[in-house]
């Protein structure tokens, strides 16, 4: 059995699965889709009231929540769509150009 963790973009064709079949669940964890991002949201914790409006609006799962409070972005999943910035009533999120939050 070929597992997702054992293959990558350097794996020769002989070691891949027929039809690209995946034989286990949860393999998205091994695949950083955050690299697709061209704009990046930046979280300003001091302005955040934890109203939780941004969380359900996020089309991915890039805003983790713990104990009723939102945490900083999960950039592995964030595609940089900017919806969170748009819905935030408190300007606690700003978008910056580029794939990294510090650019």
């Amino acid at each position, binding site marked *: 059995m070929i597992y997702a963790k054992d293959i990558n*973009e350097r*794996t*020769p064709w002989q070691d*891949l699965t*027929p039809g*690209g079949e*995946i034989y*286990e669940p949860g393999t998205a964890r091994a695949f950083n889709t955050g690299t697709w991002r061209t704009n990046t949201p930046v979280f300003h914790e001091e302005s955040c009231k934890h109203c939780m409006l941004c969380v359900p609006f996020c089309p991915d799962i890039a805003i983790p929540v713990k104990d009723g409070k939102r945490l900083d972005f999960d950039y592995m999943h964030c595609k940089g769509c900017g919806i969170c910035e748009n819905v935030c009533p408190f300007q606690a999120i700003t978008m910056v150009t580029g794939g990294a939050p510090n650019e």
Partner: protein
Amino acid sequence: MNNCLSGNEAVAYAIKQINPDVMGAFPITPSTEIPQYVAQYVADGEVNTEYVTVESEHSSMSVCIAAQAAGARSVCATSSCGLALMYEVLYVAASCRLPITLACVNRALSGPININNDHSDSMGARDTGWIQIYAENNQEAYDNFLMAVPIGEAPSVRLPVMTCMDGFITSHAVENIELMETDVVRKFIREYNPENYLLKKENPLAVGPYDVSPYYMEHKVLEAEAMKAAKARILEVTAEFEKISGRHYGLFEEYRMEDAELALVLIGSSAGTAKAAVDKLREDGIKAGLVKIRVFRPFPSEELARALAGTKAVAVMDKSEGFSANGGPLFAETRSALYDLKERPYLIDIVFGLGGRDVNTEDIEKLFGRLANIAVTGEIGPVYTHMGQRSKEEKA
């Protein structure tokens, strides 16, 4: 046991003996009888098949894809525009490596709309990644469908198989054929036991995930290698089939080719007509022969080159117009196969029989006359021509 069956009945009977888990069913002339007979078997409780009636051929093939991915042996039948409507999902079946078996009853494609036989439907699907096996008669249609199952399902192959027969000519004509005992068939096709399938509870499986460019090409190479491997598997299965049936099949059939100088390459029921013409010419001392291609995908390139190596002039007979302006698909494959020979025969292409246009022994004899002339003079004339159409020009 001997029986009198039409080609469609013969394939339906093969399906009954296989007793597949699922059939995706949508009617289209001339293949309609196949799902019709199977529906009767289902209604009479003679098979356990889950018979899924759908709203289109795109859906009947999609049913088969889903079922096969789930771990169920699935079959389907269609013709012409039905196959064309499946086009997108034919690729999905092959690229997901799902060994579905499909009976294609060859019919012309629209337009103008026509329900009669030629090979333009399955030739249009020749590059979808399906194995294609063509029958000359009812017996072959039955045998090919049975052999398709263990060919496609072999772990070294895992590709869907399309068995083709000529619409009406083969599908509706009743012939004497020899059927096998059902227990012999079951033993021959074996249980379908894929290593991984959606309903296997031990390991969740994802089928057909999105393939980014760093992976797509590798998966296509895997698929291409499977198609290459299919050739050996087909020969294994035909050898096994010969043991239980006494009927011998290869990748193609060579008819009176031992010392043939003039030869035809063709597919399907027209081979019967051509064989009669070859026999007549042989009586007149003309060294005529023919190669009937059975397996078109994978194409038996090296084998065909060897079979034609000793000939002087060859006519490829294409029963589909590929609109390449350079000859039909069988011609392209044959000419490519012969390229590596040190001494090649002269080669011409004849597109014939479109939309049910008849071909008779006199037509074939005339064609051999043209080949004889080419062999003597070395003058090929036009390489790619049509045969059987009304024309203001005199026939060659």
